[in-house]
């Protein structure tokens, strides 16, 4: 239920609705977009970032929160770890149990690796990931008026032309193959009577190519892939995050050190190939923003890969989703899918006025909302002092007919209804929220991780942990696609590689060297990483906590 003080503003939104239905605001020109971003997008605040002082990407600029975990000491003392006793020996170790990791496992299996020789190690449960939370959809250029080349141009333009071309080409060319694969696995995509996929626009798309399964798209994909992995019998080690990679005497990656979160024991895994599918950094709360991300999104993969010499790219840009929940307080920061705007809901200010086209690329849309709230002072102020703007959801049913919201936005409808807000009749209050790690570890088109001297043997990466696919800004519907396309490629190539690979004696030499470098750079031993889980315990409790047991 909305507090009384919102009423006046809601009435204004209702009063302007008919007029606004006639015409959405103009899209911004290139110059206007640039100015808006420079002034209002959080990425353009120099004080929120710093140069890395160590490692192969030394000198590159990353958010302070990322620098903090990169310039951090390992969780373990390498000298105290016994690597002579191997707990698991396998062909392929996949670190991460979300969409990318599970797709990788399935394609490794399709390419001849037996299920007993594949392990998925994951920090939470199999499927607890950002994939399962992806609501709006997945892009694929599979309609007559569309083509992978048109999709390519949308991705590159949306990414501010910073993307790695060969990765984008794979993303868009493989997209229809992935949707077809899903269809064969039984994913229930939204279809018309004759089987045609129901597709809509997303921010920055030039064709309607957003495929969806209601607004549970990621969940539907994830639960089908997980079901398939279970049918095949792929071993999953849950609550067992990796805390460092292992290398052999030739410097190849040959496994990882896992940590059982419940027993505090470490496990040594020897693997011919390792696939990093650890996701992104939402739970680092860059610049103090709330996040849409799942509990385990702490960028562990970046930390581990960087210590074996993986290059980072495009880490200076962060994706703030334009529409996170701003009210009610219980769910602040959670995602309001872009599909809400895709179906016609317009962002409007406290006076009920339009101020931006609903489907600008995400960074532009987010910057416009921040400007409206803090530059023009036309946001709605909540009882906790937060500001937000209205997303006029009742427009959806005026445009598409009664019942559309429950049918196509069931998850959103349910989320707000739980807090007595009916988005069919009342607008919803939103503000940008930390959503996605645009950049990441650099890979090539075979999902092999790249270091300063080319390929790091034995190491592959897929999904949000890798960078280059989305340049400086990802479009809606390309992250689910990224997990599937590069998960598949990583699985196929890791299978191929592991057939020939031989792993020598395992070591943590790279970690020792990294520690030396940290010391040489004068970085104090205050921080350890990967951080594995955020800590939301109340400060009052923490200040009196003692470590006895």
């Amino acid at each position, binding site marked *: 239920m909305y507090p009384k003080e919102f009423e006046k503003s809601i009435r204004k939104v209702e009063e302007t609705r008919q007029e606004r239905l006639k015409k959405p605001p103009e899209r911004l020109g290139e110059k206007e977009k640039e100015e808006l971003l420079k002034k209002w997008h959080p990425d353009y605040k120099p004080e929120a970032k710093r140069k890395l002082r160590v490692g192969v990407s030394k000198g590159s600029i990353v958010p302070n929160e990322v620098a903090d975990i990169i310039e951090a000491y390992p969780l373990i003392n390498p000298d105290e770890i016994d690597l002579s006793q191997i707990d698991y020996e396998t062909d392929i170790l996949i670190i991460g149990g979300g969409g990318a990791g599970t797709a990788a496992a399935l394609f490794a299996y399709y390419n001849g690796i037996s299920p007993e020789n594949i392990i998925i190690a994951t920090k939470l449960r199999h499927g607890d990931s950002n994939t399962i939370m992806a609501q709006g959809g997945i892009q694929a250029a599979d309609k007559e008026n569309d083509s992978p080349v048109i999709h390519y141009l949308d991705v590159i333009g949306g990414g501010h032309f910073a993307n790695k071309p060969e990765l984008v080409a794979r993303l868009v060319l493989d997209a229809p193959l992935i949707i077809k694969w899903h269809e064969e696995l039984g994913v229930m995509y939204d279809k018309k009577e004759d089987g045609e996929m129901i597709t809509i626009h997303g921010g920055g798309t030039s064709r309607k190519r957003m495929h969806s399964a209601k607004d549970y798209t990621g969940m539907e994909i994830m639960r089908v892939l997980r*079901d398939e992995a279970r049918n095949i019998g792929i071993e999953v080690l849950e609550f067992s995050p990796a805390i460092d990679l292992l290398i052999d005497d030739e410097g190849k990656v040959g496994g990882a050190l896992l940590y059982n979160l419940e027993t505090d024991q470490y496990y040594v895994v020897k693997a011919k190939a390792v696939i990093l599918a650890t996701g992104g950094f939402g739970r680092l709360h860059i610049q103090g923003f709330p996040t849409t991300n799942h509990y385990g999104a702490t960028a562990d993969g970046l930390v581990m890969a960087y210590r074996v010499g993986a290059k980072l790219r495009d880490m200076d840009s962060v994706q703030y989703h334009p529409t996170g929940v701003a009210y009610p307080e*219980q769910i602040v920061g959670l995602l309001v899918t872009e599909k809400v705007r895709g179906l016609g809901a317009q962002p409007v200010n406290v006076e009920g006025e339009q101020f931006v086209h609903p489907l600008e690329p995400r960074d532009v849309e987010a910057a416009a909302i921040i400007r409206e709230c803090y530059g023009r002072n036309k946001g709605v102020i909540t009882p906790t002092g937060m*500001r937000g703007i209205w997303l006029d959801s009742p427009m959806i049913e005026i445009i598409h007919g009664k019942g559309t919201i429950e049918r196509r936005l069931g998850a959103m409808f349910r*989320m707000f209804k739980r807090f007595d807000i009916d988005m069919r009749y009342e607008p919803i209050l939103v503000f940008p929220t930390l959503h996605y790690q645009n950049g990441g570890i650099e890979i090539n088109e075979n999902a092999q991780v790249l270091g300063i001297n080319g390929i790091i043997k034995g190491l592959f990466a897929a999904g949000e942990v890798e960078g280059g696919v989305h340049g400086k800004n990802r479009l809606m519907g390309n992250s689910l696609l990224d997990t599937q396309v590069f998960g598949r490629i990583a699985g196929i190539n890791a299978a191929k590689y592991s057939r020939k690979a031989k792993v020598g004696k395992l070591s943590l030499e790279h970690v020792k060297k990294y520690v030396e470098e940290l010391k040489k750079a004068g970085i104090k031993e205050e921080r350890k990483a990967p951080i594995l889980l955020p800590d939301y315990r109340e400060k009052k*409790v923490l200040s009196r906590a003692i470590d006895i047991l």
Partner: protein
Amino acid sequence: MARKRKEGRKKEEMKMVRIYIMGKEYKVPAGLTIMKAMEYAGYRYIRGAGCRAGFCGACATVYRKEGDYKLYADLACQTTVEDGMWLVQLPFTPANKATYDLEEIKLDDKTLVNFYPEIARCVSCNTCTKACPQELEVMDYIQACLRGDIKKAAELSFDCIQCGLCALRCPAEIAHYHVSQLARRLYGKYIAPKAKHLEKRVEEIKEGKFDKEMKEIMEKSIEELKEMYNSRYIEPEEEEIVVEAD
């Protein structure tokens, strides 16, 4: 911005409520979700927290309220604490899943009951439906499975987040969420109409229809790409009336 928000919060006077976490009393601010309330009390989750947004089913929670005989079931991340709530989380559900090769399955009205014979034990008590935090018609979809109405079962169960609360409450010991997973996959694979345009596009890609054009665009300079991007045709917004497959 984040800073301003915090200052605003401080101004509000905090109203506290009593909750009992596994029987032990804590005082927490009113208005928090169960998940945040437990963190406020000093718990750090390993199990019992996943997406924190109502999509993953990791935080299945049961609780009673003072003076109320009912056992409630809900998601900790989507439920606000109330004064006098006695709660416990159930972060894992032991339940058997049938294994199958979807390519080999013979589809008829007995398929589901063959893989999950225990659905025939359903006594129509509706406890599963009452336990469902998604408010799905769980019993109705189990009945649909029993009748072999795969389409109905797939539709009714579509919003299932597989938290397992139905299975834990069921007197017939059915693992509803596994049964419906199979129903949905069968529907998606065998019953929903195929997307012909998709098949066609996949063929075109395999034949290399776009390779030349792709190579050309990949070689373009940023200036050329900018020009193309800024003048590209954008399909209009208006949507035709869609008749969805049912």
